[in-house]
């Protein structure tokens, strides 16, 4: 096992990684910008190194500085956390070239999944379902009919040169196909001077479902069930839950089986996430995140598995000692991302945290680097606390979440806590009845109402 791990990140995730290391008896090195000299993980780490000024490019994205810090502290391994360099294949390769262990997947897998087009091809080859569609442009009505038959309805016809919704038409059933096809072409021609169109399955109300994977690269692969991250605004997740209120055990087993086989064939190592759109019982691959995710604690809550500990273990060459049949989904968990933002305008709200009090009690976990007197710097991500609540049932979890949100105190800065409080009292949310568009729709109604 490693003697010393350098944590190449900041904020709550740096603290999360520090905690896992500390519990494994591994010493930690916190690297930080000048703006984070007083950060919680810097205070708690065994050693800290200032690697640059506040600008991320000169500190947390500064590969040379991070590697120099590893050199001068004698670290064995580097954990990249979430964001920053965590999905940078060059960094992973550089870490390895310099003789350190990168706590994550191989640079090749990071590169593969980082390229949208190659990732989708890889997914198809690995047997992961992708959104069905035409392989290229659809030329003429006969081909359109043929593609429609293969792909199925509803169908989206979109300009090859398109963007912004122009040259995009939906055909809900066969009767609408020809008109939609010709209108899309005409619009594409008018808008882009090019009437080439693609066709693919149209997803009107998909949910964002993702599978948490853990693999040792030595034949051991497990999944920890799914997370439902449909509660999004501008592709930013706000609240996540596990299991998904929309999936049943059979669907979970089916997509789980697909994920296991694919990761086995890929020879993947470390934690990773397969993201899907889900509609009417079907899954469609979006992308794979070759890193830890912000919402990983809800999977930890329902499985009892410490994902960061496992990441570190497999990076050190250990095999997984968990088999799929050992993993039991136990109860329900929800994470609320508390951001330093105005809860209605989402304007960032950095500044001095004058008072801070974490919710406590049964089934409540808080991952946060805040403390009273801490100044949230304006240079980084606005996530300041994750409130993770677990219950034996979804209803118990919701009730517990309500009382835990009441107990959270973050004063001096605006946070999204009031938004979460409003959100979790909405009947649609309580019923688990929401897709990836729900939040923006609801917020629009709120703004208008």
């Amino acid at each position: 096992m490693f003697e010393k791990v350098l944590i190449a990140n900041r904020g709550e995730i740096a603290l999360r990684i520090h905690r896992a290391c500390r519990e494994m008896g591994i010493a930690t090195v916190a690297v930080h910008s000048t703006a984070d000299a007083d950060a919680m993980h810097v205070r708690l780490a065994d050693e800290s190194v200032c690697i640059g000024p506040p600008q991320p490019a000169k500190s947390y994205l500064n590969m040379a500085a991070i590697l120099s810090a590893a050199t001068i502290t004698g670290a064995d391994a580097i954990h990249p956390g979430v964001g920053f360099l965590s999905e940078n294949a060059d960094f992973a390769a550089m870490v390895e070239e310099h003789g350190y262990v990168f706590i994550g997947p191989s640079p090749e897998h990071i590169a593969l999944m980082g390229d949208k087009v190659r990732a989708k091809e890889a997914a198809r080859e690995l047997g992961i379902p992708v959104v069905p569609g035409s392989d290229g442009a659809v030329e003429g009505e006969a081909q359109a009919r043929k593609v429609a038959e293969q792909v199925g309805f509803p169908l989206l016809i979109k300009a090859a040169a398109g963007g912004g919704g122009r040259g995009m038409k939906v055909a809900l059933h066969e009767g609408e196909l020809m008109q939609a096809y010709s209108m899309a072409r005409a619009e594409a021609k008018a808008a882009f001077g090019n009437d080439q169109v693609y066709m693919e399955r149209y997803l009107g109300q998909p949910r964002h479902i993702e599978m948490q994977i853990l693999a040792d690269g030595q034949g051991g692969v497990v999944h920890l069930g799914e997370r439902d991250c449909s509660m999004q605004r501008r592709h930013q997740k706000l609240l996540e839950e596990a299991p998904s209120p929309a999936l049943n055990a059979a669907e979970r087993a089916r997509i789980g089986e697909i994920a296991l086989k694919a990761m086995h064939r890929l020879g993947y190592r470390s934690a990773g996430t397969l993201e899907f759109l889900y509609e009417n019982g079907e899954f469609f691959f979006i992308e794979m995140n070759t890193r830890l995710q912000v919402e990983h604690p809800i999977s930890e809550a329902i499985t009892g598995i410490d994902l960061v500990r496992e990441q570190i273990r497999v990076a050190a060459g250990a095999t997984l000692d968990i088999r799929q049949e050992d993993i039991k989904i136990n109860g329900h968990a929800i994470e609320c991302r508390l951001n330093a933002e105005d809860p209605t305008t989402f304007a960032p709200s950095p500044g001095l945290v004058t008072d801070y009090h974490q919710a406590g009690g049964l089934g409540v976990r808080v991952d946060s680097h805040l403390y009273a007197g801490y100044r949230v710097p304006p240079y980084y991500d606005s996530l300041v606390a994750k409130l993770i609540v677990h219950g034996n049932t979804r209803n118990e979890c919701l009730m517990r979440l309500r009382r835990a949100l009441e107990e959270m105190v973050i004063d001096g800065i605006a946070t999204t806590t009031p938004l979460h409080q409003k959100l979790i009292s909405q009947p649609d949310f309580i019923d688990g009845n929401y897709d990836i568009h729900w939040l923006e729709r609801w917020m629009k109604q709120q703004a208008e109402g």
Partner: protein
Amino acid sequence: MTKFPIDEEALRTLAGLLEETGLSEIEVAEGERRLRVARHAAPVVQAALPPAQALPVQPAAALPAAGAPAPAAGPAEGTVSSPMVGTAYLAPEPGAATFVSVGGRVEKGQTLMIIEAMKVMNALPAPHAGTVKEILIQDGQPVEFGEPLMVIG
């Protein structure tokens, strides 16, 4: 004691701007001069822990390898801080004479030491001319970004 110069006019302008823009704080700096005005909506609350202190860094030598910014106010005038993380060497090679010594005169641009980062040797040039008053590190010592290395007065 010299009289403290106060640009009342500038302060009034800033106060007006504060009002107009609805900001709660404006700070302007020009070289070593700095003005700051603030208006609080609510009573100021004293923090339980001391606020984050700016690291003692100083407008330091800019190395070509890593851009060195100049954050906040620093310690003693003339302090040269490290523009990067690495290992500092006071001499060009083991056993050789050091680049500079305490009491010695240095010209602007003259190499003060070498900082090794990622196996690259980066020469640290003097940001200004003067006399070496203090050398704050040992030969071969690991240094952080912003760490004070030398005082040149």
